């Protein structure tokens, strides 16, 4: 195993999908492990964190990790009640995520383990649990430097840029990209000439912000939940259509894109079709972007 790697432990969005038709892609919800020189960063704590926890509990090399949460929707935190290292005394686990205070972050995690939803609360966690002050804008895990940015999803949701020292990894599990563009196009005829010009400028600026957030990523892990047909009826739900993601990744100079947060409705065949269509977009634009489907168990070297 490489000294530095990232591993997908959960790649589904919304809810776990442990169906035989889905397992080539994977059924667990969001969780990515990034390990650099035995320092461990975990992005999100969906059901994928459960097998990760089991693996970590069985080894002795490290007893410390940092979990960064994009937001507190169930599919991103529901693995925590079953995360074994949290229940082992010699472990140290630090959490970071959106919120105005440590208290708010803690309450967001505590509440899913309160009765009647779960038999034991977070007070039964025996590991040393710490919450990183949410106003802290840069956090460090070993040689990794992690920064967040706000993304388009209901509630305050973060994307994370992880600079490993050798690679720039950007994790954006939930984000509805290119939303304003469509809103403006829908309403354009209602506006005066002056307004139309200002909205076009506003849109360019908004798109520049989106591109800036993922610019020059070596690895971009991005929400690609919807097909164009899905997006017709699910616009405003806070997830992206893969067509927009692929185009944004090309425009931002991303090197490798991992399509992520797959719709649990989509079986392996549907996701293969999304992949094939993504490749067609890249070829039609004569771009050098490498595109992959994020699959559970997939490991990517970061050395």
């Amino acid at each position: 195993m490489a000294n530095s790697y990232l591993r997908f432990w959960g790649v589904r969005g919304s809810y776990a999908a442990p169906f035989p038709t889905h397992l080539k892609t994977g059924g667990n919800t969001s969780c990515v492990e990034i390990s650099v020189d035995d320092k461990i960063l975990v992005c999100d704590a969906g059901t994928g964190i459960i097998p990760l926890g089991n693996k970590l509990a069985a080894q002795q090399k490290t007893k410390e990790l940092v979990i960064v949460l994009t937001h507190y929707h169930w599919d991103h935190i529901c693995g925590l009640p079953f995360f074994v290292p949290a229940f082992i005394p010699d472990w140290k686990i630090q959490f970071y995520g959106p919120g105005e205070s440590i208290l708010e972050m803690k309450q967001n995690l505590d509440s899913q383990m309160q009765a009647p939803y779960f038999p034991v609360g977070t007070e039964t966690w025996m590991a040393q649990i710490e919450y990183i002050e949410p106003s802290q804008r840069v956090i460090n895990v070993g040689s990794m430097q992690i920064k967040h940015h706000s993304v388009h999803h209901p509630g305050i949701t973060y994307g994370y840029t992880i600079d490993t020292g050798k690679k720039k990894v950007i994790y954006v599990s939930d984000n509805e990209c290119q939303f304003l563009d469509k809103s403006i196009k829908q309403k354009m005829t209602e506006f005066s000439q002056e307004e139309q010009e200002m909205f076009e400028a506003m849109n360019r600026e908004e798109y520049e912000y989106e591109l800036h957030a993922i610019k020059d990523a070596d690895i971009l892990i991005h929400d690609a939940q919807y097909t164009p047909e899905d997006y017709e009826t699910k616009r405003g739900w806070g997830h992206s259509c893969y067509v927009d993601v692929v185009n944004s990744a090309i425009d931002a100079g991303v090197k490798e894109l991992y399509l992520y947060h797959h719709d649990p409705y989509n079986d392996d065949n549907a996701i293969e079709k999304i992949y094939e269509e993504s490749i067609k977009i890249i070829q039609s634009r004569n771009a050098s972007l490498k595109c992959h489907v994020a699959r559970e168990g997939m490991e990517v070297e970061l050395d």
Partner: protein
Amino acid sequence: MNTEIPTVVVVDDNATVRALFQRSTENLAIELHTFGSADDADEFLADQKPKLLFLDIIMPEKDGLTYLQELRRQPLHRDTPVIMITSKDYAQDRTVANELGALEFITKPMPMRAITDIILKYINKDNHY
């Protein structure tokens, strides 16, 4: 008649949105201050209570909802009238904003008339000439 010129503050990272507010309010008797981030607005809002405060939800570093939470903890801004600016009218954002006492949302792309209407709705209409 209230002769005091009301102050309106806009915090949005999108420069065109700030320019749109400037253009929309040229004929309103208000004092408009615009800022590109919560950090930039902090110094002004430390001792000024605007008549109306517009906050963009998605901003690169500190988002508008988190910033509103911070402001609400300051006695000066416990009841400052706030309107959220957003690209998307997500129900969850609306719930959080309502809990923090935001008056309403204005959704991008907002025509200039919508900006003047919402400002006039919350400030003294005598300030319009």
